[in-house]
């Protein structure tokens, strides 16, 4: 029972982290209609920038400055790259962001090398917040939860309660009309792209010390972020939240509990072929849930796309 609570908290942390990435991505998608393959790369840049800044100014300045720097880079990418490619259509846009992801990974290796960076949590948060049945919950995790929730609320407020948010929402649906009303739509697009990538940057800053700051960190997380927003429904902020938490908990629980395929199959009335090591199905019988925990989201996504192509909360097809 206690372990369930612990796993709920762990899953929440994973889910909220995923949410910070997917929120920016889904925002960008609903604006430009293109999936930004390089989104996780901006997350990686956030972590590396923050690490570099933390060497001189400490963790907290890193948390403040790194996302801004990432946001400015993101805006630059939109202004000088994506806007140019936009005229060729959606597929080249997708390919552009794909190439950008490759380039950023190479760039990071060029600057920081291939080894993991010794980027760590600030000393002030290096204590155990509380323990549940011998399992310690570090204070840093609680901090991560608070930051993520604060960002979600802030984002929701800006989008639904402020004038800027109204204009953005209108620009998403009727770009031509909003432009005719005298708003600078390209500027709004650039701003949204910048904010979206900055959000990814924040995620990088706070996840870097926990999940490791290394050149492969974007690749590890990259495709799972698309999976999240596809499951949640492209363009839906709530969908991104729900899907992130869902994925966080599914993966955490399937790792934490050894559900064996053997038990499932026997439960379904199949008999185990003997001898098992000689059977063509031996691999199926030996599967355990931790083994496949990280590919469960992909299975979920394919199923969702087949049966409900607009995702859990999406309003339109991708």
């Amino acid at each position, binding site marked *: 029972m206690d372990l369930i609570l612990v*796993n709920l908290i762990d899953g929440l942390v994973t889910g909220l982290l995923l949410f910070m990435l997917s929120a920016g991505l889904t925002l960008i998608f609903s604006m430009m209609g293109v999936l930004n393959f390089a989104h996780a790369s901006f997350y990686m840049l956030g972590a590396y920038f923050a690490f570099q800044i933390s060497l001189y100014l400490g963790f907290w300045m890193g948390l403040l400055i790194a996302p801004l720097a990432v946001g400015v880079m993101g805006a630059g990418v939109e202004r000088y790259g994506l806007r140019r490619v936009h005229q060729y259509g959606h597929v080249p846009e997708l390919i552009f962001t794909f190439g950008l992801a490759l380039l950023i990974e190479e760039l990071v290796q060029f600057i920081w090398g*291939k080894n993991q960076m010794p980027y760590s949590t600030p000393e002030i948060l290096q204590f155990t917040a509380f323990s549940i049945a011998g399992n310690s919950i570090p204070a840093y995790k609680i901090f991560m939860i608070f930051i993520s929730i604060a960002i979600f609320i802030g984002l929701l407020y800006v989008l639904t309660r402020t004038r800027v948010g109204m204009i953005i929402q209108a620009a998403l649906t009727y770009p031509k009309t909003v432009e005719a009303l005298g708003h600078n739509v390209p500027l709004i697009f650039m701003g949204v792209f910048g904010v979206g990538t900055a959000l990814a940057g924040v995620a990088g800053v706070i996840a870097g010390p926990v999940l*490791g700051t*290394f050149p492969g960190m974007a690749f590890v997380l990259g495709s799972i972020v698309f999976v999240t927003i596809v499951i949640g429904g492209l363009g839906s902020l709530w969908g991104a939240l729900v899907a992130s938490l869902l994925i966080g908990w599914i993966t955490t629980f399937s790792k934490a509990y050894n559900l064996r395929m053997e038990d499932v199959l026997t439960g379904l009335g199949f008999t185990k072929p003997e001898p098992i090591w000689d059977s063509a199905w031996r691999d199926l019988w030996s599967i355990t849930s931790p*083994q496949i*925990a990280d590919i469960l989201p992909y299975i979920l996504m394919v199923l969702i796309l087949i049966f409900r192509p607009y995702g859990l909360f999406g309003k339109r097809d991708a």
Partner: protein
Amino acid sequence: MRTTTMLGLTTALTLAASAFAAGADTIKIAFIDPLSGPFAGTGTNGLHQYEFAAEELVNKQGGVLDGDMFEIVAFDNKISPKESLIQLQVAIDQGIRYIAQGNSSGVANALTEAISKHNRRNPDDRVLFLNYSAVDPALTNDKCNFWHFRFDANADIKMDALTDVIAADDNIEKVYVIGQDYSFGKAVAAAAVRFLGEKRPDIEIVGNELHPIGKVKDFTPYARKIMASDADAIITGNWGADMVGLGRSVLENGYTGPLYTYYAAADGITAAFGDAGVGSLKLVAEGQINPPVNDRAAAYYEAFKAKYPDGNISQARITNVIEMLAKAINEAGTADDVVPVAYALAGMEHESLWGTQLKMRESDHQIIQDVHIHAHTNDGVTFDYDNSGFGLKVDSTVTMAAADSPTTCKMRRP
């Protein structure tokens, strides 16, 4: 850029013209390992160790035969089996007869098969495979061949040694086995279960599981499970980021028992663990670095650090590869025909720079040597890793580990 530039030029030449005859006064050893990509750090460090060993242990001693020098030629395989096979072909075309590789059993498996086929199909330019690190037991069992020599203790031998130590520790009653979901991880798990079952049937294996390799972002759920199982010891074959991730997660979660590993040192891992790993992290490997066995070993390490201040001698066996190859070539009286060299290597006995006896077993070309259990510590470490102040110190030693272990190898000799 290093020698790779030179090599690129020669490759361009081979592309443009034709095969490239080996120089009369150098014996080239192709080093096929990752020099770009995520494992480049490990590969580059290995290359430096090879270059240094060839220079110090052979060339400065006057070379082999009539003063022939060793030259290490680097090939980047990007840790891909396909690329390795291409680079193998390039190396063979350049007249290289000795292939050294170590990172990834998958690559080693591809190479040993390709070399065996190549030698059968092209008796005129046969090559030898000097495997210095790939530890999948199959390579010296079912998949063994006459051209393959393994200078590292294989996963089974290491586990044999490790379980000797565990068996001797009465405090350990529950063991948790966790590893990456692929051949090596499975081999480690199977060996752990088998040896513990033989040596200490009373030990309970409270967990035996595999996780996806290189894909786990957060090891917390695994750490929680391990804690919940009340394990007294953890055994893992994890390497790279998976090792750091698992180890950190477990330690952060309050685990204080021993964490027995294969690959938890150097290449940034020692630095990443730092203080947290002291007291828990144990590593099974050959080659005693700390405390230095003798002045010669210490001087060698110091000279290496002088040349490569950021490097580590993390694969002590590389000196054995170079020394034993030189000895075999001298015994055979030729470097061009690898068959007598291989016969000389098989069964060879040698005293390692690191103070241990070595014997290349004739039946399966698996080296037999002392295997040490090291502790990750900063206390009494003469030569640290990653310039972190932390390093490995020998805790206990299993002499000539698994010298009479069985093998299923049925070697066909020319």
